[in-house]
C-alpha cells in the first residue's frame, strides 16, 4: 500500500515563530501528538511532539512563575532537520523508518511541500486491513515447503471451492527454514471442506495453531 492512500491530509501545522502555548492548545484540542512546522512556502522546517512541548512547559508545581516559558517561539524546541517520506513510498518503508529511528510520525512531502502526515496509528490501521481481520472470515494456517509455485498450488484449492480470500500472509517457519507458513483469511463460516481438500492434496494444515494441542 502507498503512503498517499493512508496519509491524513487534514493537517494541523504551525509556523516557526508561533508560540509554544499555541502548540499546546492544538495538541489538546485535536488529540494529536505531533505538529509539523512549515515556512511560508509550506516547506517542512521542523516537527514538535507532545513530549517536546511538555518538556518546555512549567511543572504543575510551578505554574505561576513558569508561565512565560510558553511564550517562546516553537522553533526554540522543534526537532530539525525532519525525516520526511514521499506519497509514493510504501507502508513497509515507513514501518522501517519508525522502527529504526524510534519515532512515531513523519510528514509526507511532494516537491518539498507538506501534503500529509503519517502516524503510528495510521500504520497499525493499515496493518489490520492487510491481515483482513476487519472482515468476516475464518483463518487457516498451512505449513508448506518454501519453493517457487507453492502459493498458486495452494490457492487454486480455494478457487475450486469458490472460496473468496480476504488476505494472505506468509510467515517464516522458525524451527526449519525450509518451510513457510501461509496464513489465509477466507470468507466462510465453514472452512472444513476446504481443509479436507488441502489435506487430501498433501498439505499440512496447522489449525488451530496451539502448540501442544493435537485435537
Amino acid at each position: 500500500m502507498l503512503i498517499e492512500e493512508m496519509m491524513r491530509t487534514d493537517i494541523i501545522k504551525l509556523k516557526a515563530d508561533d508560540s509554544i502555548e499555541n502548540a499546546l492548545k492544538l495538541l489538546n484540542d485535536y488529540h494529536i501528538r505531533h505538529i509539523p512546522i512549515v515556512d511560508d512556502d509550506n516547506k517542512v522546517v521542523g516537527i514538535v511532539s507532545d513530549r517536546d512541548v511538555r518538556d518546555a512547559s512549567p511543572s504543575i508545581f510551578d505554574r505561576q512563575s513558569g508561565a512565560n516559558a510558553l511564550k517562546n517561539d516553537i522553533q526554540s524546541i522543534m526537532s530539525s532537520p525532519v525525516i520526511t517520506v514521499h506519497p509514493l513510498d510504501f507502508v513497509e518503508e515507513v514501518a522501517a523508518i519508525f522502527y529504526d529511528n524510534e519515532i512515531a510520525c513523519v510528514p509526507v512531502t511532494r516537491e518539498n511541500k507538506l501534503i500529509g502526515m503519517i502516524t503510528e496509528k495510521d500504520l497499525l490501521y493499515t496493518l489490520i486491513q492487510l491481515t483482513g481481520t476487519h472482515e468476516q472470515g475464518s483463518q487457516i494456517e498451512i505449513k508448506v515447503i518454501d519453493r517457487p509455485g507453492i502459493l498458486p498450488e495452494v490457492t487454486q484449492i480455494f478457487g475450486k471451492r469458490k472460496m473468496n480470500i480476504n488476505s494472505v500472509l506468509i510467515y517464516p517457519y522458525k524451527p526449519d527454514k525450509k518451510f513457510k507458513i501461509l496464513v489465509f483469511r477466507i470468507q466462510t463460516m465453514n472452512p472444513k471442506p476446504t481443509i479436507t481438500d488441502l489435506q487430501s492434496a498433501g498439505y499440512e494444515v496447522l489449525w488451530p495453531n496451539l502448540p501442544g494441542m493435537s485435537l
Partner: protein
Amino acid sequence: MTCKSGFVYSPDVVNYKFQEEHPFNQTRVVMTKDLLDKAGTLSNEQIITPRYATDEEIQLVHSRKYVDTVKKAGEGKLTEEECLEFGIGTEDTPIFTNMHEASSLLVGSTLAAIDAVLDGDYDHALNLGGGLHHGFERKASGFCIYNDGAVGIRYIREQYGYRVLYVDTDAHHGDGVQWAFYDDPGVCTFSIHETGRYLFPGTGNVNERGLKEGYGYSFNLPIDAFTEDESFLELYESAFTEIVNYFQPDVIVTQNGADAHFLDPLTHLCGTMNIFEKIPLLAHQLAHEKCEGKWIALGGGGYDIWRVVPRAWAQIWKIMLGEQPFKGKLPEDWRNHWQPKSPVTLPSTWHDVANSYKAIPRKQEITEKNAKVLESCMQLIYNQKNMPSQKSGH
C-alpha cells in the same frame, strides 16, 4: 414455579434449506419438537403458529435493495454474479428456491414469539428456527439471510419501547446483531463465543464496546479454543448477572446456538450438555428477577444435529416451563425413529457420559486466560461501580 410458555413452530421451518450437504439443517428443529413430543412435555395448546414477516418488518433492519435481491434470487431471476455483492450465491449462503419466503417465515416466527410475550399472556416464548445472527443490513453471511433477532429487537423498540438485553451464547460472535445496535443505548448486546483468531467471523473482541451513545452497551467474551464447561459457565454466569444489574433491561432476548459442544464440527469449544442446561436456567432466573419474566429465546448455530442440538434445545423448553432439566434416558421411541436416518449413533441419555473427549492439555492456562478476558470485559462496569464520586464529578 410454573410458567406459561409458547413454542413457535411450523413444519415449513425446513424450507430454509441450502443444499443437501450444507451444515445448516433445520431438520434439527423438527427433531427437537419430536423429542419434546415424545418426552411428553409439549402439548398442542403450547404451539404458536407463526406468520410470515412483512417486507416492512424485514426492512426494519435490511435494505430494500437487499430484500429485492433475495426475492429475485429465490425466483431464479438473478445470476450468481449479480448476487455476490449481497453475499448470496456463496458457499455459505447459496441461492435456493423461494429463499425469501423461507427466510421471512423465520423472521415472522421470532416476531410471533415476541408478540406472545409482550402483547399476549405468555411468560416466555421459544423460536428455535431463528437466531440467525450473522445477517447484515445488505449482506447475507454465515448461513444467515435475514437477521430475525435484529429485526425482532428493532420491532420491540418501535412497538413497545422496551430496553432489550440480547444474550448470544452461540460459539460464533453475534456480529450482525451487535453492529445493528452498536450506537443504540436502548439495546445491550452480550456475546460469549470462541475467539475470532481462527473462527468465523473474527470479530467479538473485548474492546468492541459500542459507539457514541451506544458506548458501554456492547459486551464480548471471546474465549479460547478448547474451553470446557467450568470456565465457560464461570464467565457466562458472572458476566450475565453483572450486565443485567448494570443495564436493567425490560426484556431479555437470548440466542441459543448449540455449537459450543465438543462434538460440533465447526467450532473448537469443549462444552458438554451441562452448559446447555445452565445457559437457559440463568436466563430464566434473571428474566423473572429483573424483567417480570419477559424472555424470548431463539435458536442459532448447531451443526451436530443428531447428537447435540435436539437434546440441547429441548432443555431450553423444559426450563422455560419452570421445571427442572431433563435427566436420565432419552425417550426410546425418539431414538428408534431417528436412528435409521442418522450417520452416527444417537446418544441414549440426556447428559453426556463422563470423559467423552480427550483431556485438554492446557486446561489451566485456558481457564486463566478466560478469567482475564472476563475481567477486562467487566472493567467498564466495575469502574462505574467503584468510582461513583469521580463519575459525578465530571
